[in-house]
């Protein structure tokens, strides 16, 4: 057994006084694509933001490459090689596409060059001078993913990257995730649509009420459909 890349143990998190995560525990091994599934409000985004240090009031243990990060500020966590692509995408309106793309600093060697990013997302290359928020929803999502590929981060946290996108764009994002996995990236993916998740992931963690309640290897997904329907209420 190799050492997990990310090891989360009994993670609790709060927004102000509201206690949102109640002891989240899971692992991600190097090179895996793992999803967090769960109903709206289950705590998937909060889990990602806690890993990233964006949610500051948190307790428990989050180890990245064996190193404890629970006490670190988010800028220091990013410097260890974790990158976050938020649900709302976070494209900056006062920056053009190129500036958005170059904004996240390179924290490690081994990130993609601009050519590599344009190889995945050719559309971006045509729009470098456009204002970031003038792009279509799909292009903004590509920009939001593309810009964190440059940084050399080993672990990517992608929060609902296909939300609200047309099927063809969704497929493109799915194919991109597969290519990133092939290139050795480790990915934690939040996804509402588990049929999409099944096409890209190795394992699935199911969250309910601020806890991880189940883990389903992708190979057993078909067999677990009944259970999943109950968890997700679909």
């Amino acid at each position, binding site marked *: 057994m190799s050492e997990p890349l990310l090891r989360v143990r009994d993670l609790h998190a709060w927004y102000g006084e509201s206690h949102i995560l109640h002891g989240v525990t899971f692992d991600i091994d190097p090179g895996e694509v793992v999803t967090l599934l769960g109903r709206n409000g289950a705590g998937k985004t909060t889990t990602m933001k806690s890993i990233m240090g964006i949610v500051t009031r948190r307790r428990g243990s989050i180890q990245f490459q064996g190193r404890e990060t629970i006490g670190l500020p988010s800028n220091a*966590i*990013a410097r260890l090689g974790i990158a976050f692509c938020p649900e709302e995408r976070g494209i*900056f309106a*006062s920056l053009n596409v190129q500036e958005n793309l170059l904004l996240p600093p390179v924290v490690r060697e081994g990130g993609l060059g601009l050519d590599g990013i344009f190889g995945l997302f050719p559309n971006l290359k045509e729009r470098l001078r456009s204002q970031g928020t003038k792009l279509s929803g799909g292009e903004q999502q590509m920009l939001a993913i593309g810009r*964190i590929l440059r*940084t050399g981060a080993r672990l990517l946290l992608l929060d609902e990257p296909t939300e609200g996108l047309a099927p063809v764009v969704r497929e493109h994002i799915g194919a991109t995730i597969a290519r990133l996995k092939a290139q050795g990236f480790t990915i934690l993916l939040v996804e509402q649509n588990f049929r999409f998740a099944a096409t890209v992931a190795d394992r699935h963690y199911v969250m309910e009420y601020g806890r991880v309640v189940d883990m389903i290897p992708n190979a057993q997904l078909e067999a677990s459909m009944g259970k999943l329907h109950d968890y997700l209420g679909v």
Partner: protein
Amino acid sequence: MATQALFGQLLIGLINGAFYAMLSLGLSVIFGLLNIINFAHGAQYMMGAFVAYFLLSLTGLGYWWSLLLAPIVVGLFGIALERTMLKRLYHLDHLYGLLLTFGLALIIQGVFRNEFGSSGLPYAIPAQLTGGYNLGFMFLPAYRAWVVVFSLGVCLATWWVIERTKLGSYLRAATENPTLVRAFGINVPRMITLTYGFGVGLAGLAGVLAAPIYQVNPLMGADLIIVVFAVVVIGGMGSIMGSIVTGFALGVVEGFTKVFYPEASNTVIFVIMALVLLVRPTGLFGRAS
């Protein structure tokens, strides 16, 4: 109308405009990133002039050294304020920052007035910039020409750094979404501190430029800052070029008002502010958000 008087007022307008532009630029950058309306800006401008005065009287360092050192000294003072006080207010409403900096302005100005009275201390024009040029239609004092050109240069350089460089893209991005920029690995708290120091340093620099023109007076920033706030409201918070253009333009408008309708020269900016607020509350260059 004597063209002599017209050009004379145009020059005075440009000089005032240069100060409006430099001060509103700093206010605007600070507000954008810190969400704090820095009411101490006028006091910090005054401190710049006093630092120049002390450098000369205590150490013999003249104008050119002051131009370099006074912004650094005043900027460091700003950094100390930010580290010890302002940083505690970021999660609160704008109003708290305004009240704190307003209080600080009163304290700083009070202390200086206690020590130095309010009659003003003289500060000589540097030897290299005495005299002037006879342009035929008017006499252009060299020092005033220098102030206009130099502050325009400083404003444009600031604009260039913010709008065209990598460092500037961090600043713009952090102004929009500091949490995400920090989660990319950028030390946003340090950036906030340095930005406040920069904005305050810019006020200190304006103070040095002003010293030979207006003398060194504890209250020199108190009246000016009110006008500068009107300029910021007219230009719109958060637009760098907007602050610069509006600053110079309103100085000129004020100058011309002195020629054509002197009674209104002290109020014209506030009248314009009221009109802008009615028609375009986000300011001439402001982004609606």
